């Protein structure tokens, strides 16, 4: 199941898995979409209908973690079986080319001095971009409630807003801004990954002195109530899929960063993310 409409990130992840799994297992794999509300409608259906079925998989990611909490969804990720992390994309912080800010430090100085005077443009409220700004604020000692975050319905709209000079800085996935940065209309101040990204001329937030890292990750979940053997078998199949040529081709074609972590390592990562995201959403005032 891809809990989003066709064409988006989760859908294309599910369809790449379809090709790779079909090749490694020699079985027919079907993708179906249940879209809506940051994936929580799909999650609810998955919890109710897939219970105990090892052949049912669901794609999900960081956005779903946030959506479960902001939408007060009746279901959550503890009810499904975490299987493996698949891909991740770093976020980038940009300013228009004619902005007075040359470095992340300069931007943060002004942000600390007068938080509400700096407007941040990015995707919808409570999404990855908003969460990142919240984490940055916390790390530099600004109350996240003071953030002047201007939400747009998507990266494209946010890009136009940044170019028009309406907002001070923009936040979205690195790939969303790549063209504009290459064209010289925007300047990338920092990226949110742990390590610098090859081919991207910007320091990480950590290098810029802000102790924050955030990846917009995508993962695959299994049905609720799988037995230990079933879980192990599915994880093994996913490991095989990850090693396949089809999957590696899909990574290259879509420009996805490999972030594969299976089983317990992913479960620990997930719990960590849920705690961290919940805390920042609470600080941002999006959940009570």
């Amino acid at each position, binding site marked *: 199941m891809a809990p989003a*409409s066709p064409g988006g990130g989760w859908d294309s992840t599910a369809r790449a898995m379809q090709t790779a799994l079909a090749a490694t297992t020699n079985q027919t794999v079907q993708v179906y979409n249940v879209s809506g509300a940051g994936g929580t409608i799909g999650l609810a259906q998955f919890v109710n209908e897939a219970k105990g079925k090892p052949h049912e998989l669901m794609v999900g990611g960081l956005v779903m973690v946030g959506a479960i909490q*902001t939408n007060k969804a009746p279901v959550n990720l503890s009810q499904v079986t975490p299987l493996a992390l698949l891909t991740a994309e770093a976020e980038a912080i940009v300013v228009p080319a004619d902005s007075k800010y040359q470095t992340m430090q300069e931007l943060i100085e002004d942000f600390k001095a007068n938080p509400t005077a700096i407007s941040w443009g990015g995707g*919808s*409220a409570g999404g990855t971009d908003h969460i990142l700004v919240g984490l940055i604020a916390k790390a530099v000692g600004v109350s996240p409630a003071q953030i*002047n975050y201007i939400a747009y319905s998507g990266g494209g709209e946010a890009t136009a807003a940044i170019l*028009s000079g309406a907002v001070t800085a923009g936040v979205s996935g690195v790939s969303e801004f790549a063209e504009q940065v290459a064209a010289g209309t925007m300047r990338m101040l920092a990226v949110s990954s742990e390590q610098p990204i090859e081919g991207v001329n910007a320091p990480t937030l950590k290098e810029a002195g802000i102790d924050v890292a955030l990846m917009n990750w995508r993962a695959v979940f299994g049905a609720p109530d799988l037995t230990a053997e079933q879980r192990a078998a599915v994880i093994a199949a996913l490991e095989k899929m990850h090693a396949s040529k089809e999957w590696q081709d899909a990574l290259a074609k879509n420009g996805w960063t490999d972030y594969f972590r299976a089983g317990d390592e992913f479960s620990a990562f997930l719990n960590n993310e849920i705690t961290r995201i919940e805390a920042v959403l609470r600080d941002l005032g999006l959940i009570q």
Partner: protein
Amino acid sequence: MEVFQQLLIGFSHALTPQYLLLAAIGVTIGTAVGVLPGIGPALTVALLLPLTYNFDPTGALIMFAGIYYGGMYGGSTTSILLNTPGESASVATTLEGFAMATSGRAGAALATAAIGSFVAGTLSTLLLTFTAPWLARAALLFQPADYFALTVLAFVSVTALVGSSLLRGMISLFIGLFFGLIGIDVLSGQVRYTFGVVELLDGIDVVVVAVGLFAVGEALFVASQFRQRREEVLAVRSRIGMNREEWRRSWPAWLRGALIGFPLGALPAGGAEIPTFLSYTLEKRLSKHPDEWGRGAIEGVAGPEAANNAAFSGVLVPLLTLGLPTSATAAILLAAFQIYNLQPGPLLFQKAPDLVWTLIASLYVGNVMLLILNLPLIRIWIKILTIPRSLLYSGILVFGTLGVYSMSNSFIDVLLMYGIGVIGFFMRRFRIPIGPAILGLILMPLAEAHFRRALAISQGDLSVFVTRPIALSLLLATLVAIILPYLPVLINRLTGKRTPAGRLVFGQGEED
């Protein structure tokens, strides 16, 4: 020049067999729905949206654009032969067109409509080709305050100028607005008006509302007065074509119609209805044969038909460059773009140049196809008018139900569609136009979001709407749009003349 290069690349895509076929399908369906009264391009595109999920976006949009301007061609046929406009943009055509047909000149009326549509369609596509890239660059300067002013101008002019009653326009707009507010608010992430139904968290899809209001509402309305309707289609006995005199009189009307249609379509003022009436009025005033008006003056068909086709290319300008729909059909086209993860706006020309230019090139191609469809093959379309209404509308209901369900396999969507259909029936019954509701659904949430963004950026300072030159001039234009309909009355009152109270009205309260 860069524009020519881009356009040539566009043609190289548009002339591939696959896209040619889709354009042909689009214009054929478009002509058919244009011919059929009550079914317009907005409904048709909404019905077809769910079926095109698996198309590539360029192909789907070529087809949808074909439906839109095919509808503009087809509408004239019904106006001329049936004295009922095939869709709202052809209301003006009925006045002289039907008169020509009753006096045995149907052939000339159909010919001037089709050729005029072709001339104006091509001319306005040329204008689109050159103005759109320029406007797309200018649009990069638009900030939230400016977008807000633009949306205000759009919905004020649509409701104030179109339709016989300001009150009815407003009612329709606010019905649309309410549907638009349902779901998660983009800015705050808070949930509004969902009453605990999780399926409503993402809001109501524009397709559900459009199919409900247009298809279900219209079907119920037709059913409710089925016994009372009997319409006679005039037979076309004369040759389809014009004599030398008719050509000479049509030419200037076509050109004037195109020049009125394109800029007025491009302004956020509601698509094709206003320009057709302006063109009609202008031709009547300029005519050297004032005695013929009302008994079949060819300029009265040539001008409005040219204007409505030119307006379509005009509508594409703000849609492609600002992401701003100015008619109900454009609002649905916007939804089509968004389904494919494409955001029309200043960056569309940079991000998807192939799509944009292929679409524009296909407009030239489609116009040629439509000329062929509507001149030699016109008699086939006339046959369509003889399809029994009962069969037609039951077919549409089945098609609409399937389409809405297949969109997200949601039973709730189907229930919503029928519920909204009942509202649509009462709107039809009380002559409340549907177009503003669709625009309200799309435009009002946009207006709200931009208003709040502008205030967040200015940190609560309201002067942001009057200190930016773009925003200020747009708001002043809005004021003009409010006052304009009352201008004749005001002038008369100031000069001391007594006139019957009333406002200047464009259009008859029908909608596309």
